[in-house]
């Protein structure tokens, strides 16, 4: 082999070795074991290429790991592309920060599918926020309306309380004055009674006396009705109430230990039932007050042995103004019970006595020890 041929062969070997090593750097990230290239110029160019390739790989490794602040270490087309990539990633990072801080106006141009997806995402986020803000504005408006309504209601309640207060004072003063005048009237009637010799006049005076009693009862009703629901509820013993009944038909207490949570006027209920028996039973001699469970409710039964309530009147006896006296006794009973959630109905058999059943819901009755 001639000297020229030897040199050509040696140059070919150097070139192949350089290419093998560059391929190794490209594929494995490092050169092969043998980097000994005899030609100094080829060796220098090989080393420059190897180092640039390794630098490009280093930059790619940094970028792929999200470390964006490292500068791209060289220039030229390939490094320019890396520079572009770094710049875009930095810009996207900045935009992500802007979005995180609430700026949804960010858009990206000229990054193909990424731009489309990103812009759709920010547009959707912006639309969602717009809708949320709309909803928030609606809720704020609603809240304002509610506040106005509450305030208006508060003012109305204040006006109502004021009117109520005035009515109470008026009612109290009027009741007091009327009772005084009634007492005067009844006193004069009593004084005049012995002087009335004329039978017709005496009959008139008796009627006047009855009318005065009814007026007194009406005034008392007004007082009681005004108090209804104003003093809260309390537990009351039925036996305690029944024991205080006036003499008259014998009341048999079958409610020992029963307590009912109701308006403090509950005793008036039983007083009025007793009064009703006295006035309208046609001579009842006995009243039985009993209780029994009906599901979770407690039924309290007022049963007398009088003439009972005719079928035609059962529905109406609790209405205001219906009745032979003031027409307010049973009405007041119903009102007092209703305010505590207790129902009442007359379920007696005409001719066999009146039977008032009061249904006390669970939680409003108990048996005391």
């Amino acid at each position, binding site marked *: 082999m001639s000297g020229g041929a030897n040199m050509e062969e040696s140059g070919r070997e150097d070139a192949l070795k350089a290419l093998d090593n560059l391929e190794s750097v490209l594929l494995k990230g490092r050169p092969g074991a043998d980097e000994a290239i005899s030609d100094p110029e080829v060796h220098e160019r090989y080393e420059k290429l190897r180092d640039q390739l390794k630098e490009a790989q280093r930059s790619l490794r940094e970028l792929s790991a999200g470390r964006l602040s490292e500068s791209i270490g060289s220039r*030229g087309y390939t490094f320019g592309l890396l*520079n*572009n990539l770094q*710049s875009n990633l930095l810009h996207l990072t*900045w935009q992500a920060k*802007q979005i995180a801080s609430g700026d949804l106006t960010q858009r990206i141009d000229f990054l193909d599918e990424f731009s489309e997806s990103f812009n759709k995402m920010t547009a959707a986020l912006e639309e969602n926020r717009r809708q949320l803000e709309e909803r928030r504005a609606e809720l704020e408006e609603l809240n304002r309306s509610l506040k106005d309504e509450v305030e208006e209601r508060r003012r109305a309640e204040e006006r109502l309380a004021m009117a109520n207060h005035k009515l109470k004072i008026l009612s109290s003063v009027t009741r007091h004055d009327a009772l005084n005048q009634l007492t005067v009237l009844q006193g004069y009637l009593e004084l005049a009674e012995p002087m009335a010799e004329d039978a017709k006049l005496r009959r008139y005076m008796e009627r006047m006396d009855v009318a005065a009693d009814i007026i007194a009862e009406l005034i008392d009703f007004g007082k009681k009705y005004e108090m209804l629901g104003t003093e809260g509820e309390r537990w009351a013993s039925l036996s305690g109430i029944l024991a205080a009944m006036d003499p008259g038909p014998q009341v048999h207490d079958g409610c020992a230990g029963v307590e009912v949570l109701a308006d403090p006027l509950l005793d008036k209920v039983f007083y009025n039932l007793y009064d009703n028996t006295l006035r309208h039973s046609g001579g009842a001699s006995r009243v039985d007050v009993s209780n029994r469970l009906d599901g979770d409710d407690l039924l309290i039964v007022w049963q007398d042995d009088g003439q009972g309530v005719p079928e035609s009147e059962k529905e109406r006896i609790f209405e205001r103004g219906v009745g032979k006296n003031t027409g307010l006794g049973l009405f007041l009973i119903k009102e007092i019970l209703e305010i505590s959630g207790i129902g009442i109905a007359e379920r007696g058999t005409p001719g066999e006595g009146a039977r008032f059943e009061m249904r006390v819901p669970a939680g409003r009755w108990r048996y005391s020890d």
Partner: protein
Amino acid sequence: MGSEERRYEFSWDLLGDLELGRPNLGPSVGLEVYRLMQYSMRDVLEQRLGTEGADRVFFDSGKLAGMKLFENVIKGCDDLSQFVSAVQNALKELGIGIFRVERSEPDMGSFVFSVFEDADCSGLPDIDHTVCTYDEGFIAGLMEAFTGEEYDVKEVDCWCTGDRTCRFAVERV
């Protein structure tokens, strides 16, 4: 020179009525024409004023252009986001470049902006030094008009230095 003696003090009106003046050719001119004008002017300026002097003229011209563009096109921006969006849109619409923010620290007055496909340099041969002096001034003008404060702008990477992206370090003076 007193202002009364000047002929060409800049005014937005000097851009003229583009629709009226160019009913057939329209408002756009080829990018090569823009570069022909810029680099021929730069040649003459460099011959007359030296490289630094020419760069100074370009920077100041760019700054004036940035301030006027802000006043006439971008206008009121309440915050940095609005400003960036408005600059991005304006530069895209006018074909100047694709403007992006790489880093912003408004409290420190420190930013890094990049411009892709820059009208001044993209596609130029590698010449181993940055050339976008006009852009430096342009960005400085935009920032000053937006913030009311003076900014120093330095191009750190350029297409012409083989970086394929123009990157500008922006610092409050």
